[in-house]
């Protein structure tokens, strides 16, 4: 692997940048692998990387029906935070934040992790109570999260309108300073490059159309648009399409898939220093390094695989943005798009073994799994390599919907995250 450094940049600058080779291989699929990962989003690629790096499992293929990072990984608003309520959630999301902190160096690829702070606005008494409860729970788990008055919130984010006459007055905010953003594409590309360097095969334009099982019921391979491929371990990491894939192995899932949209504005000079989220009025906003405002909207109310959502969902979000940040009322929006997110009943993910031997699933990240990408890949690789969960994902089972041991972030936040 060609290493990126100040020196290599300088050398290439002098050679007209003609020496940059391909960053990951495009091999022909083998007939058999030790592990097949279905889905080359951030979570699937990170899983492959940690399988190779931490567990020495390198005979691995990541099969992707489209292009790598073209699913929700390349469509999300890149908010990273770990101030969730429950111990299990704090465990996995904070594990991810700690990995984000060293990721660019570790994989020698600039993922542009920017801990610029994530501020969540409280607009009513209920918000205040919920946020303060989160802050206390987070403190017990060693996760940073602090309460701000409206004035402190405005100091942290000057464009914020804290007027008492605002339609949704700001009565306070919870701030996680270690929260922030990262460059979504770079995360997919960086993990792809690092995994490929360790011998992992990344095979694009290869849709999995069936999961084969042997006489003992265990998985034996997959059918793909590029022919059958054998493996004794198959990991499904396909976000919105999880129900479809698991159905191929006869496993029914507690999931529903919804469109979720985002949009960006025309690029402008740096004017927005942090990430602001408002669950109550439903708007998320930050500014990318290119200068665009990156705005997250809500899900549509109906299940769908269309990858497009209703326009009224976007306008609803923009109404809220303009109300909270009057200086943006004249901004032009450039692009909108949608992804399909897989939502569990308790809004927590599933990273687990399944009732089918050799079949593993990592799904249910819904509207908020980008932030977990490194942590998820790290513990899921452990689950696959050792055939048992890592302590951090031990609670994120599929059985919890039978035992009732939910990790009910849905009730804790009552909205998307």
């Amino acid at each position: 692997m060609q290493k990126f450094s100040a020196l290599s940049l300088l050398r290439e600058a002098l050679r007209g940048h003609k020496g940059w080779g391909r960053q990951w291989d495009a091999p022909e699929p083998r007939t058999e692998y030790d592990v097949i990962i279905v889905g080359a989003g951030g979570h699937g690629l990170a899983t492959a990387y940690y399988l190779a790096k931490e567990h020495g499992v390198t005979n691995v293929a990541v099969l992707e029906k489209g292009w790598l990072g073209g699913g929700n990984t390349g469509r999300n608003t890149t908010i990273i935070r770990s101030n969730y309520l429950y111990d299990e959630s704090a465990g996995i999301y904070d594990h991810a934040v700690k990995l984000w902190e060293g990721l660019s160096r570790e994989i020698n690829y600039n993922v542009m992790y920017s801990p610029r702070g994530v501020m969540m606005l409280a607009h009513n008494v209920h918000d205040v109570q919920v946020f303060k409860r989160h802050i206390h729970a987070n403190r017990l788990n060693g996760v940073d999260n602090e309460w701000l008055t409206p004035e402190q919130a405005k100091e942290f984010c000057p464009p914020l309108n804290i007027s008492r006459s605002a339609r949704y007055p700001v009565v306070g905010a919870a701030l996680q300073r270690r929260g922030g953003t990262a460059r979504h594409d770079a995360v997919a590309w960086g993990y792809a490059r690092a995994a490929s360097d360790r011998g992992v095969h990344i095979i694009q334009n290869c849709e999995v159309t069936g999961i084969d099982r042997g006489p003992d019921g265990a998985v034996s391979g997959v059918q793909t648009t590029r022919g059958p491929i054998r493996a004794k371990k198959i990991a499904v990491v396909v976000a919105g399409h999880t129900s479809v894939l698991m159905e191929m192995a006869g496993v029914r899932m507690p999931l529903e898939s919804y469109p979720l949209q985002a949009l960006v504005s025309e690029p402008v000079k740096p004017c927005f220093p942090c990430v602001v989220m408002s669950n109550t009025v439903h708007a998320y906003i930050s500014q990318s390094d290119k200068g665009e405002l990156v705005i997250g909207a809500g899900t549509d109310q109906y299940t769908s695989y269309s990858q497009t959502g209703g326009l009224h969902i976007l306008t609803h979000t923009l109404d809220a943005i303009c109300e909270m940040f009057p200086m943006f009322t004249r901004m032009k929006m450039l692009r909108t798009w949608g992804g399909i997110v897989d939502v569990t009943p308790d809004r927590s993910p599933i990273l687990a073994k399944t009732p089918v031997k050799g079949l593993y699933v990592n799904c249910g990240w819904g509207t908020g799994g980008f932030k977990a990408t490194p942590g998820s890949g790290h513990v899921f690789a452990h689950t696959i390599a050792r055939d048992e969960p890592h302590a951090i994902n031990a609670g994120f089972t599929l059985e919890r919907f039978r035992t009732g041991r939910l990790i009910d972030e849905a009730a804790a936040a009552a909205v998307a995250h």
Partner: protein
Amino acid sequence: MLLIHCPYCEADLPELEFRHAGEAHVARPSNLADITDEQFEAFFFIRENRKGVVFERWRHLHGCGRFFNAARHSVSDKFIRTYKAGEPKPQLSEREIAAATPIGRGTPANEPIRLTGEGDGQ
């Protein structure tokens, strides 16, 4: 925004008047206290979530207020038909399904890039 036909009001009306109310034809067991955890899970948490024809409940919240069912294609989002609550799951004809199925296959974005142009008549 979807245009939805309320079978009670007998009119096509904007989605904003309606609330989606989850998968249809999920029968609530009348003996909830006696069923096993497995049966409860299947009733309460497991969902078909199909890519294709789905049967779902809607409520005409800002209208007549009544619940009804719909058959819709979850890739094109086109309604095949709506019908009143309590009516059995309809048998859909091939033609009805074909009319709601998107041209080409699967989702519009992030599908395999066909380099040879073979296949599905896009």
